[in-house]
């Protein structure tokens, strides 16, 4: 009888240790994907050929995608990715687009017919509006991905480079070594 108790107690103890270590040493997802995702610009523009920055990060981690497919990230983004992954940087791949200054979308209110096509195209919910109501770009949310421009049936969306104001000014990124 004693043996049964001892074994039960032992199992309970081991179970507690296992349960504790599962929580204490939990690995949240793939840390490499998180690190790559943190370097990407989060425009969710899809120019890399993947449906957003995180799927692209996953593809890079798997080895299915190259590091030079992100035009919004630019040459600096490629260099940051190369540093992170310990590979040689390479020029941006032309077939995925060219690097442009950061822009936001602006809707011409006198033309907007409230069709919601731009709202459906926006990957980051940066357009406020509903059917037959004025659509307005929330500039602080807009990533400048240009995905709303093409669907507009009345061509009332244009991209404008972000003006440098006190609110948008950032310390310039340091130039990478060897540039």
């Amino acid at each position, binding site marked *: 009888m004693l043996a049964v108790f001892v074994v039960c107690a032992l199992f309970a103890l081991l179970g507690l240790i296992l349960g504790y270590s599962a929580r204490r040493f939990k690995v949240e997802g793939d840390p490499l994907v998180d690190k790559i995702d943190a370097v990407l610009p989060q425009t969710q523009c899809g120019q890399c050929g993947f449906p957003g920055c995180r799927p692209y990060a996953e593809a890079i981690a798997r080895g299915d995608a190259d590091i030079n497919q992100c035009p919004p990230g630019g040459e600096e983004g490629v260099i940051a990715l190369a540093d992170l992954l310990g590979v040689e940087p390479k020029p941006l791949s032309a077939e995925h687009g060219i690097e442009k200054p950061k822009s936001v979308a602006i809707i011409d209110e006198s033309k907007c017919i409230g069709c919601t096509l731009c709202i459906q195209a926006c990957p980051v919910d940066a357009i406020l509006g509903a059917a037959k109501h004025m659509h307005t770009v*929330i500039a602080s949310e807009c990533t400048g991905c240009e995905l709303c421009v093409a669907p507009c049936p009345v061509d009332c969306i244009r991209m404008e480079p972000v003006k440098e104001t006190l609110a948008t000014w950032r310390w310039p990124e340091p130039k990478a070594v060897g540039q």
Partner: protein
Amino acid sequence: MKVEVAYAKPDVQVILTVNVPENATAETAIAASGILDRFPEIDLTKDKIGIFSKVCSIDQPIKPGDRVEIYRPLIADPKEARRARAAKK
């Protein structure tokens, strides 16, 4: 629960995060955000509101993470705009 209340004009857009009780409606969220004091031109008897681009009534119950949006009317008449485009072609 946390929800957002948003209003946008061409020159200024705001998204306010507010904490509201579980059984809140769109109206309580708007009142709690204080957005009506900031934009006195909002008239909830006339202006439509909605949640994530779907128009809803003012007493619509809301869920955590919803964005309660206050809309403005169109300037262009969609039918006139269509006629003008058809005439151009």
